């Protein structure tokens, strides 16, 4: 036994540098996933898992704020802002943006189930989904897209493990340390850090990126010039994306629908426009309409007056907030549908 204890001691001494590194990581918690936080606006230069942030803000505030209206969807949902959506809803509506990067139906389904499980109300809901990611496979490896373990009911250890792996990314650590010491953003940091001013609302979880807007206001031509690679060439012809909805997705959609029926939810399912003008698969659209109801599904993909205009987009997928308002106008019958979007 003594020799075993001695061996363990020697092993620990050998591993000491790594253990110290681990302790420093836990103490600093750069990705803000270990401890509980009131404000996720700290360390805005470090990319965070938006699903985790949204879920944490919701769990922290739900009792106090009594949310009853939810925005679900991917990063495109960031441009259908709570402050904007509120104006379409009754005064009693308490809006929360429950978005996540590359959100898909599995993530949305788990969130709706969680809200229902917690006996919170869902009076209003708006989905803003991408034509390509919404019914894609769940990403269980990328730390920025992996789901919150409590909402999705997955392994907490695995979630922490994926985050822990990130601290062995030499470029990230170097960038974090140099940025932390100098507060200066250097070109090599662009691969792993964010050079932007943004704000996450502590109550509604509304995310606003000020830097992009400032850049556009200063010189919009240059904005598009340096981001040419983010706008892929388009053929100008109708082009349909592949069929994605599976039987599992259908079951999830049915479950979402039944929860909405139970809550008497007023919901809108928006498939957001994309610059490439690829259409959402027609068979998938039929499935969505048959389950959720044709009146609730709004497809803005393909060739239409919104997707025609490059200036409506920040990049191939992300439209500008005024487009978000236009989509809501159509969904809430304030404006007639786009001339050729149906």
């Amino acid at each position, binding site marked *: 036994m003594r020799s075993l204890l001695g061996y363990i001691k020697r092993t620990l001494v050998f591993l000491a540098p790594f253990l110290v590194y681990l302790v420093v990581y836990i103490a600093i918690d750069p990705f803000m996933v270990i401890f509980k936080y009131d404000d996720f606006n700290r360390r805005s230069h470090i990319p965070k898992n938006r699903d985790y942030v949204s879920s944490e803000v919701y769990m922290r505030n739900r009792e106090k704020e009594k949310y009853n209206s939810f925005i679900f969807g991917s990063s495109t949902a960031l441009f259908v802002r709570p402050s904007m959506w509120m104006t379409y809803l009754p005064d009693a509506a308490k809006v929360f943006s429950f978005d996540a990067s590359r959100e898909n139906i599995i993530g949305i389904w788990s969130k709706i189930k969680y809200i229902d499980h917690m006996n919170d109300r869902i009076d209003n809901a708006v989905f803003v989904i991408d034509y390509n990611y919404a019914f894609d496979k769940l990403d269980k490896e990328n730390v920025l897209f992996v789901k919150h373990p409590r909402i999705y009911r997955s392994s907490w250890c695995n979630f922490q493990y994926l985050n822990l792996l990130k601290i062995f*990314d030499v470029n990230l650590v170097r960038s974090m340390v140099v940025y932390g010491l100098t507060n200066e953003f250097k070109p090599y940091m662009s691969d792993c850090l964010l050079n932007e001013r943004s704000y996450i609302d502590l109550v509604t979880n509304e995310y606003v990126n000020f830097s992009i807007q400032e850049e556009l206001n200063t010189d919009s031509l240059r904005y598009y010039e340096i981001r040419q690679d983010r706008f892929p060439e388009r053929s100008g012809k109708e082009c349909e994306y592949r069929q994605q909805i599976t039987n599992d997705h259908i079951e999830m959609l049915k479950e979402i629908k039944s929860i909405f029926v139970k809550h008497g939810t007023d919901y809108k399912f928006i498939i957001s426009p994309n610059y490439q003008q690829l259409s959402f698969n027609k068979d998938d659209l039929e499935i969505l309409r048959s389950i959720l109801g044709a009146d609730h599904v709004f497809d803005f993909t393909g060739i239409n007056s919104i997707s025609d205009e490059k200036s409506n987009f920040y990049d191939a997928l992300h439209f500008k907030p005024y487009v978000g308002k236009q989509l809501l106008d159509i969904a809430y019958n304030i404006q007639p549908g786009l001339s050729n979007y149906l």
Partner: protein
Amino acid sequence: MKFAFWAIVSVFIYYFLPFRFRVAYLVILSCLFCATYDIYLPVYLAVYAALNFFIAQKLPSHPSKKALFRLGIVLNLTQLILIRYASFAIDPILELFGTDIKVSVLSSIIIPIGMSYYTLQGIGYLINVKMGWEKPEKNFLRFFLYIIFFPKFISGPIERSNLFLQQFPLKNEFDSSNLTEGFRLALLGFFKKIIIANHLGNSISQLYSCTDDYMGYQIIALILLQPLYLYFDFSGYTDIAIGFARAFGIKLSPNFNKPFLSENMTIFWRRFHISLSSWFNDYVFKQTSFRLRRLKGKATVIAVFLTWILFGIWHGAGWNFMVLGVLQALAIYYEFRTKNFRVKLFSLIPGYSRQLAGRLFTYCFYALSLTFFFAPDLPSVWRVFSEISSPLEIQKISLLNKSLFFSMVLVVIFLLYEVLQNDFNSVYRKIHMLWVNNKAVRIIVYYAGLFLILTQLDGNASFIYEMF
């Protein structure tokens, strides 16, 4: 990485446990490991092990020994065919008869992970007992551990029961050299897999998914990289398995012995995936040639082709694997038939050049035949070969990237080390002594290795031989 963490923790707990509970502890650990793939898998394995255990118990004294033995073999093969080969061997036949029944559904109920490995172990054990080469194991827990032992469960080595079970009862005293050697080997395995094989694999998997994007010379380069990818991936896994087993005080058989220094395919298969090729040699080739001995020369031919076709099919339910086996059989048969002629011919070439030429030729043959291994089906193989001769177009994919270059440098270092060990022993011994006598060098290398592994972890790495 998660595996490494839990394995290390388990090793230390193992040595704190009272001696009499250690086998049970390893069985529980192994069951938990299998349950991470499928919660019902340990139950299936327990039933499988129990059947083999009881058949072997009855074998020596049973009045119809032959019938009982055959029953055991049939049971082993049936479960393998039903679960692992149904889509290839049963469903198409049922379809011919116009039935909608799909036996392959079974594989979604019982996950066939590790099945090709533990079935060979079960069959080998029954043959050993029947032939009287080994006495039946009396302790079920030990036998169950032989089937399910977690470091080797997924991809071997395919252990011989007489070598594995004779290590029990394990030694009671704590031997720190087992842990040090075991962890060192496991670290080497992780290094081979994560730092070398994963980078080679990225390029090779792309070859089969976007063949049209590669130019002829790039395809040739990738075909030549295939053996290195397979070797570093599989020997990496094997080192991890042997290393962790060693840390528990259990010795597993080696699976590789400098295979790329083989001068012909016959020697190559004595050095590559040794546990599998020696299993087929002992239990298929030798048994078949013995039974067909009255056919004289033909017996060997039949035995060679039968062995290698089965060897190919063992890898998977597909015609490409069968062709892989046939190619190996042809090579070995050719070497067998032309041995005298080749000895005469190659004696004209001076010593080391002859060795080098043999090694190079063997490597190239294996690299080409591996196209049948990596390609998902036969049409993909033809597509790859036909693209080699495609006209020169604008280069669509750049082959040489930083990570591939880095892993190739490491490959060269590893292979040089093997060449030194094999061909230039005095130089090797000097380097080895430098390693043994210099603690600082060792510590620096260990830290560098660990650091590199941690920086390259991506959380989703899998091993090639996991799918078998």
